[in-house]
Every structure is written in C-alpha cells, then in structure tokens.
C-alpha cells in the first residue's frame, strides 16, 4: 500500500490555505459592510393629493396604502408604478 503521509500532509496544508483565504475574504466583507452600510432608497415623492390623505387621518392613509399594495399585487405591477392622482369619498 502506498504511503499516505504525503496526501495527509497535503490535505492538512490545503485545508489550512483554504480556511486562510476564505477567512481573509470574511474580514474583507465585514470591513466593506462596516464602512459601506446599506441605506434604504429614498421613498418616491408623494404624489397623492387626495383630500382624504391630506386631511391627516393616519387611519385613512393606512387604508389607502393597503388598497394601493393590493391593487399593485393584483395587477402584477410594482407599487411605484401605480400613482394615485385623485381620491373621492363617497
């Protein structure tokens, strides 16, 4: 049977190198993420000029937001693609 000392030595050395290289990448990633944190994109400018929304009623705003999201989902579009231009209370 061939000597297994050489492959065992190679295996230990290679695993050490792999952990070293990937360990360095971990440090690089953590540094990048630390100095360049994620910032949420600014919300799109409010275009709704509905009297109900402008009235300051937070409950109405929540309803409009929910309807807006549901409508966008139903139509298969992004909520940003649907602009509310007018709301009339019945």
């Amino acid at each position, binding site marked *: 049977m061939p000597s*297994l000392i050489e492959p065992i030595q*190679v*295996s230990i050395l*290679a695993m050490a190198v792999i952990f070293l290289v990937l360990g360095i990448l971990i440090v*690089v990633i953590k540094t990048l*993420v630390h100095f360049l944190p994620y910032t949420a994109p600014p919300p799109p400018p409010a275009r709704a000029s509905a009297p109900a929304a402008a009235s300051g009623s937070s409950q109405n705003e929540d309803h409009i937001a929910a309807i807006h999201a549901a409508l966008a989902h139903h139509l298969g579009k992004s909520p940003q693609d649907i602009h509310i231009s007018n709301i009339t209370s019945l």
Partner: protein
Amino acid sequence: MDFSFQDAISKILHSTGFVAIEPGQGVMILIALILLYLAIWKKFEPLLLLPIGFGCLLANLPLSMLANTDDGGLFNFFYSGIKHEILPPLIFLGVGALTDFGPLLANPATLCLGAAAQIGVYTTLIGAVALGFSMQEASAIGIIGGADGPTSIFLAAKLAPHLLAPIAVAAYSYMSLVPLIQPPIMRFLTTEKERAVKMEQLKPISQTVKIIFPIASTVIVVLMLPPIAPLLGMLMLGNLFRESGVTARLHDTSQTHLINVVTILLALAVGSSMTADTFLTLNTIKIIVLGLLAFCMATAGGILFGKLMYILSKGKINPLIGSAGVSAVPMAARVSQKVGQETDKSNFLLMHAMGPNVAGVIGSAVAAGVFLSLFGSGDASTGHAAIETLQTITTSLGQ
C-alpha cells in the same frame, strides 16, 4: 479505369463503420445510450449529460473521426477549448453572471461552511492515493468532491488529462444525484431540534459592497493563488457584469447565450474524450467509487461544521445549510430547504443556504488553486496554455 460492380459494392461495404467496429466501441456506444437515457428519461443533469452522451456516441462510431484525439476532427477543435483552459473559465463567467453574492455578503461566516465542505476533496485525495493513483491524478479525482463540473474539468485537463472523461462523468452524474445522496447524510448527522432552527432574516447589502466584492476578492485570491486566476477571475467578472448595472447586455449574454453555447462545446468535448481505451479501465470504476465518497464526505464536512456553528452561535445557525457548501449551485441549497421543511413547513432556509452554496464555488476554486500551486507546472512562462497556444501559432506561421 475499369469499373467492376462487385468491386464497387465491396469498396462501399469496407468503407462503412460496420466492418471497423471493435468490441470496446460497442460497449462505449452502450454507455452513451445509458447516459442519453439518464438525461432524457430520468432528467439527470440533462443539459450536460445529453450532449456528453451524444458526444460519446459520435466519438465511438467507427471512422467518424470525432474522438478528441482525432487530429483535424471537429471535436478535436472543441477539445482544444478544454486543453487550452478556455471553456471552463467561460462557464464560470456565466455562473458569476447568474449568481447573487448577496446572501454570502449578508452572512460572511457561511464562507467557513464552503471551506469545511472541501474536506470531501481531501479525504478522496487520500483514498485515491491509497488505491494507487499518483498525487496529480489523486488531486484531479479529489476535486470531484467540490461538486463543481467546470473546476473538475479544468483541474483534470491540467493534472491528469487521461482521466478527464471518467472524472467529468462522475462529477456531473453525482451532481445530478445530490438530492438523493445528501438527505440521508443530513438526517443522520443532525437532530430534529437542530433541523428546526429558524434563522434570522438576512440583512440587505449595499450595491457598492456588491460591486467592490468581486474586484477585491479577485485581487486577494489571485495574488495568493495565481494559477486559479482564469476560473476565479471569470467568475468575478461575470458577477461584476451583474452588479455594476452598466453592462446589461454583457450580463444578459453571459448568463444566457454564452453559457449555453459554451456548455454545448464543453459537454461535446468531454463526450468525445470517452473512448474505449481511456474509459473502459479499472481506474474508471475506482473514480466512480471515489466520486461517491467525495460527495458524501463533502456533505458530512459541511454539516459537521454547521453543527459547530450552531453551538458557537447558540442555536442561531441551522446546520442543514452546511451541506450546501458542496457547491452544486443551486441544487444543494434547494436540498437544505427541502430537508429543513420536512421538520418545519414554515422554515425557509433557501436564501441562508445560498451563502455556503456560493462559498462552495469559491472554496472549490481555491482548492483547485492549491493543487495547481503544489502539482501544476511551476514555470508560468512555459506552463501557461495561452503561452503554449501563442508558441504554436508562431511556429505555424514560421513554417
């Protein structure tokens, strides 16, 4: 010129493949048909096994001149793409364009799982040497444990070209069997409590980090392991196409048309290397057995390191994501998700498993780089395929 009807018939009959076929070719045609069956009817990696099987079929039809060693034959040119390290790096370009490094960047500790899964490579290396292979051959066989087809082909072409066919077939066959090989090992090595761990939602990553990472990692890894530059460089370039946001056309081409074209060329070239004299040997059987060992050990290595991370993180990391460290993107990550949901249907591990899955791609490329540094051609000026090609062209022009 005298024309004899009988002579003409005889000449035509003797020019057919039927009179030239040898028993070995018959067996190889049968193997090609099995590969086609597995690809078409069993859906085992059909995008690769189908062209590999058909390439094998064509290469073994007598007088077809389509074996990779037939000078001037069509597949001989395709095979040059492997020999001169062109096709595997181009596949990596497409893989990079397809891969989102976001989950890895959000949880960089998962890179350790990609490293731990490489244990399969090294246990197989030891096993291969025990079975009588040289260190170069054993390295090329061991990398099957990286579960990364292009890396296996890249390394085999450099260290053991005569074993390329069985290594490529073993690598792709076992990759297609990941959903069958991994789950029993995952269940055996984890408790129900560990499998039920729900991981925290991944943090979003800034686009700038996503752009800088492929550049920084290329510089660091290639400086440490120069021989791996073709593979890693193309992987990161493809990812930069994706993340930069300014090369939409190149990104689109890399992840669709280019990778498809290169896959066809690569698979046919591999198929054309499956000739009786290289494939019908005892070594092929040994490689098939060692390939299975490589996948099992890689899965176990990832899971066991996942268990260690589970303990160190006080139960925040689900060890099941460790099995995705074997590469095989994205199938291994899907297996983690599936096994996790067997315990808790509301547990979604897919995105968490994508981190080690991508880390596995980088890890197996690094493992290949270590082998090339140890056993590849030491002289970069004479060993590099591009230099060889240039020298060949210069010589041809001079004649």
